[in-house]
């Protein structure tokens, strides 16, 4: 079982994008681009830093990120920021079908657990989406994502195995995701 360090996608927005080879804040995360149909973190749209804030044409692919921490998103160098025209379509023009926020979370047993309010991202050298924060009548809980989940744009269907690994705190969820992956044989 492995313990993962996790962060909410909403907390990544606004973080500086800092270059490891130069110590410069090359950009700021504007938004997290997430493909909900594949439960896959695609990358980030960016804002400029400094006096002339505003949207940047460049984007940042998740594969080019070497670390996401509480204080910054780290990239090897400024050349990791890709011009929108050259970026993968999913990143340059994220579609509405990628949206999972506000979807009802329904268990495969037919019980509505709550609504998706955030995507949970694993930090570290290979950042990826690992689950969802779900608002329930009793507060928010965290549910691990898996390829077995179905998504319609209105409903997110959670397999029975995932319910067992639901946690109500992010630290506990880090260990839970590791156990869930061990169970389903996903060690990515």
């Amino acid at each position, binding site marked *: 079982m492995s313990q993962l360090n996790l962060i909410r996608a909403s907390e990544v927005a606004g*973080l*500086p994008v*800092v*270059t*490891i*080879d*130069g*110590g*410069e*804040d090359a950009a700021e995360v504007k938004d997290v681009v997430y493909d909900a149909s594949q439960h896959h973190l695609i990358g980030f749209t960016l804002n400029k830093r400094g006096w002339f804030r505003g949207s940047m044409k460049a984007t940042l692919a998740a594969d080019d990120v*070497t*670390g*996401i*921490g*509480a*204080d*910054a*998103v*780290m990239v090897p160098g400024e050349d990791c920021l890709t011009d929108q025209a050259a970026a993968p379509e999913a990143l340059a023009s994220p579609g509405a079908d990628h949206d999972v926020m506000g979807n009802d979370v329904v268990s495969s047993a037919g019980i509505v657990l709550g609504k998706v309010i955030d995507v949970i991202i694993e*930090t*570290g*050298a290979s950042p990826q989406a690992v689950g969802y924060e779900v608002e329930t009548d009793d507060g928010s809980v965290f549910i691990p994502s898996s390829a077995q989940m179905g998504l319609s744009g209105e409903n997110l269907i959670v397999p029975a195995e995932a319910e067992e690994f639901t946690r109500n705190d992010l630290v506990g969820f880090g260990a839970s995701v590791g156990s869930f992956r061990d169970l389903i044989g996903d060690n990515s």
Partner: protein
Amino acid sequence: MSEHHMQPMIGQPVIAIDTAEEIGDVKHFVVSTDVSRVERLHIDGRKKNALFAEWASLESFGADRVMVTAADDPSESDDDRDLDAAKGNVELLGARVLDTAGFEHGTVSDAIFDADTGSIIAIITSEQVRVEQSHVHSLGSYAVVVADT
């Protein structure tokens, strides 16, 4: 090797050996982007524009004074990194310490350098952690980036 701490050198008078004249005070250490060495000193002198003394022109770092070989060695610069250093935009001492995983660890409170060669040996953080130069990636206007441990 002659290890010196950088912080106590800030504000020390800079004296030219050839004229015995006081040129000014040490204002900043200009270090390379990879934080491997001190490239020059920014001297806060009597002139309006910033003066920089190249490492090769520095004779010694004493307990009370920094000595340069000749009074006319320090010169003005139009190099962007020098000017950023003079404005305090790129400054090792006081820089935010950020690791490669994206977590901050205070600021740089001091650095240790070899006065014989100008090589940076280590930085000391405000959390009293010594980070060897081999674990330091870069210094820019936003942060000094260190390896994730």
